[in-house]
């Protein structure tokens, strides 16, 4: 329907405008991220002298300094916390979502709504009482001080997403399993979970990134320097010193793994991050 217009001047203008806006916005988004990585390979003097360009040589000194300053420890801590959070959520949310999707029981609707209601209450709004709960449970010196609250706050959206996913699985599939003598749990474990890969992946990735990036709770709950996560560690770097090479190296170390996972698993990523909004 557009072919007859393709060469008219006005449609040429539209095409130019379209690509102009697109390339401009992409540069504004992409260049700062690229710049962050480029800066991490420059010496302090080169960082000022050669602000925009490629580094003259791939200097790894900044990375060595970042490791010295404790960046590897932060990465280990963030990994443990994020993996622990995802594990708790996958177990808790898939069981709960399956119950909401497949069983009819008293209070089903009320319990589901209770989970969903707290979606509008962000972690920031309850950080003070949450902190006192964590202190009274004596969790502050363990990874659990972050894992359990992250899991609890990630559960509602995960249950919501997985329930929608389980709803699309035809009932006949589990019926057949049950006729073969499977229990409800067997049907869930052997039939439903193995075909729920995409749903579980979307939930896992969304929650991994949330846990990896969270600052507020880490800021108030982590007192032990050995338990600091990446956001907390970075935050402390910049208040402690003004040596920018290692800071750029640390920023890159914190970001590159997430971006690689994002680029490789983009579809799951985008689905996890946006499905709640689209279905809700």
């Amino acid at each position, binding site marked *: 329907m557009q072919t007859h217009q393709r060469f008219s001047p006005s449609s040429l203008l539209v095409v130019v405008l379209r690509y102009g806006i697109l390339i401009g916005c992409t540069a504004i988004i992409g260049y700062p991220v690229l710049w962050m990585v480029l800066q991490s390979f420059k010496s302090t003097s080169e960082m000022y002298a050669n602000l925009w360009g490629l580094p003259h040589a791939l200097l790894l000194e900044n990375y060595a300094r970042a490791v010295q300053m404790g960046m590897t420890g932060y990465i280990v801590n963030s990994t443990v916390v994020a993996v622990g959070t995802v594990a708790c959520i996958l177990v808790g949310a898939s069981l709960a979502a399956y119950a909401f999707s497949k069983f009819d029981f008293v209070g089903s609707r009320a319990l589901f709504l209770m989970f969903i209601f707290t979606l509008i209450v962000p972690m920031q709004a309850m950080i003070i*009482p949450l902190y006192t709960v964590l202190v009274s449970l004596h969790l502050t010196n363990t990874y659990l001080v972050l894992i359990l609250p992250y899991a609890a706050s990630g559960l509602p959206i995960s249950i919501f997403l997985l329930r929608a996913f389980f709803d699309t699985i035809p009932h006949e599939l589990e019926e057949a399993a049950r006729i073969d003598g499977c229990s409800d749990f067997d049907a869930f474990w052997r039939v439903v979970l193995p075909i729920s890969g995409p749903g579980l992946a979307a939930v896992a990735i969304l929650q991994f990134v949330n846990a990896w990036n969270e600052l507020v709770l880490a800021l108030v709950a982590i007192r032990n320097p050995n338990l600091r996560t990446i956001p907390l560690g970075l935050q402390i770097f910049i208040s402690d010193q003004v040596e920018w090479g290692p800071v750029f190296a640390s920023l890159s170390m914190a970001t590159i793994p997430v971006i690689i996972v994002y680029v490789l698993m983009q579809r799951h990523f985008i689905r996890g991050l946006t499905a709640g909004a689209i279905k809700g």
Partner: protein
Amino acid sequence: MARPARLQPYFWLLPALTLFCVFRLYPLLFGLFLSLHKWDGMAPMAFVGLANFREALFEDSLFWLSLSHNAIYAIGTVIGKNVLALALAVILNAELRGRAFFRTTLFMPVVMSLVVVGILWSWIYNYQFGLLNNLLQRIGLGNFQAAWLGSTHLSLYSLIIVDIWKFFGYHMVIYLAGLQAIPPVLYEAAVIDGAAAWRQFWHVTVPMLRAIMVVNVTIALMGAFNVFDLVYVMTRGGPNNSTNVVVLESYQQAFEFYKLGYGAAISIVLMLIVIALSLAQIRLMRGGRAEEYN
């Protein structure tokens, strides 16, 4: 579809429900309790009734200043994110070379940590060595160089730009999903009626995207009133409180001045404001078409 069952479902719910009650529901209720008390975190709590709320609403000018910053932040980010996101979604929805590349890059900041983004942009805004002032100098706009984070007039707006930069890709992807769900027949009909591209946008795209717009505005609005990370990393509410926001204020009251009851009361006031604004906004935007959604 669902099968009747008696006790079994509750066992399936047990792990999720336990976590949820201990770390989500109980703190929520405990926050209400805390807001009625004066407490420094150590000494026994003293019941003070609604005194904390009275202090926040009638005596604390900093609370109102912070709230006004959240309001400006909300106006700036909600409009900025939605206009940009919708425009780029419309562009990306057409047949286009390199579409996957553009979409991937535009969404990238969404997956980055706010702390990383905050530190990166502090550097971009740096008065002496930052990219922005350097760029202005190079293209002959040296007069517009400024202390982007150091000036009380500019700091809040500088933060708004960063927030838009970080999140508009998220809204763009939601709009894209909405656009792809519009039946092509509607556009074909519009073309037969002789509607130009601009009219198609206003009379087909916008009405069909209404529900998606409500979602995007609500998410951006809630984000703007709950903003903390960026402000904490980039300005700590300064200079001279020009970027102080309510969550930061409540954080400082609780963890720097040890007024935990007062901090909790501020959070609750904020939570009520956010809920009220979101509901009002949803009502308003759904307009006379409310019956469609029930």
